[in-house]
């Protein structure tokens, strides 16, 4: 399952989620402001505390709304 590390008020996070929905990609929201464990997991994965972070395997990831990279990551 695709994970999106994000938080509600982040406009680029919203854009990523809308993009995944437009491509019919199911995803889980991991809210880094509501859940400390998600925040830690996000930092551990990307090495930084920027969001959104998108991953499908907890290894490879994309930071931000970078459409070509997201497409490549998820094989869209």
């Amino acid at each position, binding site marked *: 399952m695709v994970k999106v590390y994000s938080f509600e*008020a*982040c*406009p680029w996070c919203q*854009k990523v989620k809308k993009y995944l929905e437009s491509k019919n990609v199911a995803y889980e929201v991991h809210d880094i402001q509501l859940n400390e464990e998600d925040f830690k997991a996000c930092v551990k994965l990307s090495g*930084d*505390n*920027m969001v959104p972070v998108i991953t499908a395997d907890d290894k490879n990831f994309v930071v931000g709304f970078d459409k070509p990279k997201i497409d490549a990551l998820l094989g869209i």
Partner: protein
Amino acid sequence: MEKKAFHKDIVIIGAGMAGLTAALYAGRMNLSTLVLENGLVGGQIANAVSIENYPGFESISGGELIATLQSQAENFGAVIDEFDTIVKVTLNATPKIIETEEKIYTCDAVIIASGMNRRKLPLPEEKIFAGRGVHYCEMCDGHAYQDKIIAVMGGGNAAVDAANFLTKYAKKLYLIHRSELRADEVSQKRLRQNKKVEVLLQTEIKKLHGNGRLESIDIFDKISGEEKNIFVDGIFVNIGVTPNTQLFSDEINLNPNGRIIAGEDCRTNIAGVFAAGDVREKEIRQLTTAASDGTTAALLAEKFIRSLNR
């Protein structure tokens, strides 16, 4: 794969206040209306925490205002595509042609409401620290600076509003500006009353330091001539904006600052092409004037389209 072609009465480039207002009006006039946006719907105000100078609202977030406006436009039939990117425009033609990564649109009228981008920090280290201590979106990235030391660079309303917002995270916040503040008095007063804040005017940022991410900056006091190093975990840059007009520079008349030359009627040098919002050359750039431009451009575009169909 060959791109599919579609025809629209009107294509609006940009989904900020001007573009969405134009879309609302165009939709209400039953024009087939497409809005193309490759950044955030809402443009510069998408990140605004609180807007207190839009008539009818004592205080409203940019996200909330834009979401309502987007719904209004969509309810009247406008289609907003925020995932396809324009690669080429041909405006001096009938019909006009807008080519995106995925499609080709022909249309009778175009409204350019492509707005502005934030100016980057003009230091060579910017590329090293972008996203690793140097930021351009306080709403997106501010949360990462809980109990940290933050600097905000800039002296206009956007900078001071960003600083006011970031005080909720920072244990210490510097507002650094090379001259005097231009922000409105209400915002300045709010900032100066906050004990976490230190305002450094007539001060320039000279160099960024850090090992992988930003750790400190060199600042230069232009009055005393003193240069010193201060620890900061992050800088949020708000030093102005540049117009998004590169796509149109071959066909549309621009002023030396890159803004589109068009009068209050929003008409550009090409018939059927209108410029609306901050991208248009004008003295006052506010949300209200962007909405006004969007209205004018849509109504005159409809008149132009009608004249074609006579």
